């Protein structure tokens, strides 16, 4: 859906989305990376399991929730990438354990 203005990335780091290595740039949000993927979504909803993708990018919609380094329901638009970070798209029910 989205693309970087500059490609290839300068100072690229690698993060993992559902196990697959993906290039990212220091300083950008995890949500920004997700929106560049071929499958540009972050989670499915607890009620009807429909797909959602980051919508507001400023922390007020919670559609960008995903599992980050093992922690469920993280707002990826407020989370900056870090080398080796592991992102998992989140399915269905939110988990309250962390």
């Amino acid at each position, binding site marked *: *859906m*989205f*693309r*970087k*203005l*500059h490609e290839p990335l300068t100072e690229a780091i690698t993060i993992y989305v559902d196990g697959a290595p993906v290039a990212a*740039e220091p*300083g*950008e*949000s995890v949500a*920004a*990376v997700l*929106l*560049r993927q071929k499958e*540009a*979504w972050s989670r499915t*909803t607890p*009620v*009807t399991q*429909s*797909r*959602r*993708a*980051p*919508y*507001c*990018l*400023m*922390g*007020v*919609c*919670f*559609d960008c*929730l995903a599992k980050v380094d093992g*922690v469920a*329901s993280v707002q990826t*638009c*407020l989370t*900056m990438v870090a080398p080796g970070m592991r992102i998992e798209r989140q399915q269905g029910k*939110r988990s*309250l*354990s*962390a």
Partner: protein
Amino acid sequence: MSEVDLLIVGAGPAGMAAAVTARQNGLDVLVIDDQPAPGGQIWRSVETVAATKRGALLGEAYAAGQASAAAFRASGAVYEPGSQLWQIEPGFRAFVTRDRQARVIKARAVILATGAQERPAPFPGWTLPGVLTVGAAQILLKNAGEIPEKPVWIAGSGPLPLLYMTQLLKAGGRVAGYLDTTPKGRLMAALPHLPGALGAMGDLLKGLGWKAALKRAGVPVVKHVAEIEAVGTDKVEQLRYRTANGREAIVSAEVVLVHEGVVPSIHPPLALGCKVEWSDVQACYVPVLDSWGESSQDYVFVAGDGAGIAGAKAAELRGHIAALRAAVKLGRLGEGAADERAAPLRSSLGRELALRPFLDTLFAPRPQVFAPPDETIVCRCEEVSAQEIRDLVKLGRPGPNQVKAFTRAGMGPCQGRQCGYTITHILAQAENRPPGEVGFYRVRPPLKPVTLGELASLDQQEPVA
């Protein structure tokens, strides 16, 4: 427990300005913000981006944020980015999570500088991946240098879509078309406010400049669009629209960006029990404030767009003004000195605010924003449709809190930030009473979801009263 004189929530234009003034008057200041860097939404990533090529295409108003951020950094205020405020109690005790650790901050005064959010404007399909707000797309451009891959459809009203399209074109992006949702006759209605707005002529001219740039670039514009619908299964595939005079079209689309103005972020003041009042022209609640920005709750101030939408310059002025009064109330500044210093700030603020009646009338949201078709999901979190809300009305005369209890609308992680005003409006129409009378959800802690792990981390440090 950390203890400070002044807790500032938000590090955008208002919060940064307030911190600078509060520090100049000897207050001990802590600034918390959920973003990773100072600047708020308008100056997102400004410290790292302003001096780059991307900064140049974002324009002068963006670059101006660099000086403000530098002054803030040099102010001596303690700054904790990446902090989520999830509860604040009178007294004041603020519960904050940072790096998955919760803690309590005690403060003698609080300035809420939490800004604004884009007005939720539900339509069928607005939850599909591929639908984002224009503000979101602009944040992607600022923060990540990222633009829609294919020519993008933009639907909405107000200055932000015009500004974003201008920036996008400069960056080498393409616009498939702009569906202008401003209703017919708005310019005529706004014209009587024009003389008052002339003091802010510069901003008006800027707006006209953006329009001219779009015209030169040949961006197709469809005027008076009244209804839109995003169609697709797992993501947006098509966009359907209908104009006020009944012209309909279906176009293929991958990304649809929408914007129907901005509204103050009202949850923090509501959580503190600050009085709010309904603004008919902006169709939202605004906190009731005195001329210093102090709310109905002693020692609680609201500054910036959270005090009423007025833009970055006004936000900075309001931040300085609120901090002066906080310094007076905490015994660091005389009343006379504060009055003297506030006078020039107030006259600049007056000039900024003079533009608002014109803009607010010109860009008042189209009525359809508040009357989505039955099948529209109004609560994104719990997936409650407009129909379900309307069905409830047949059973009685529920208020927003009953709707919440019956349907779970407003109970999800966003805490009604996306559905609150829609529920208020649907009830107002169905029950035939003014929205201001219907009211808003009661805001309860936590303001942001907290995990059990985070709560436990709090327990280890402090007994919770």
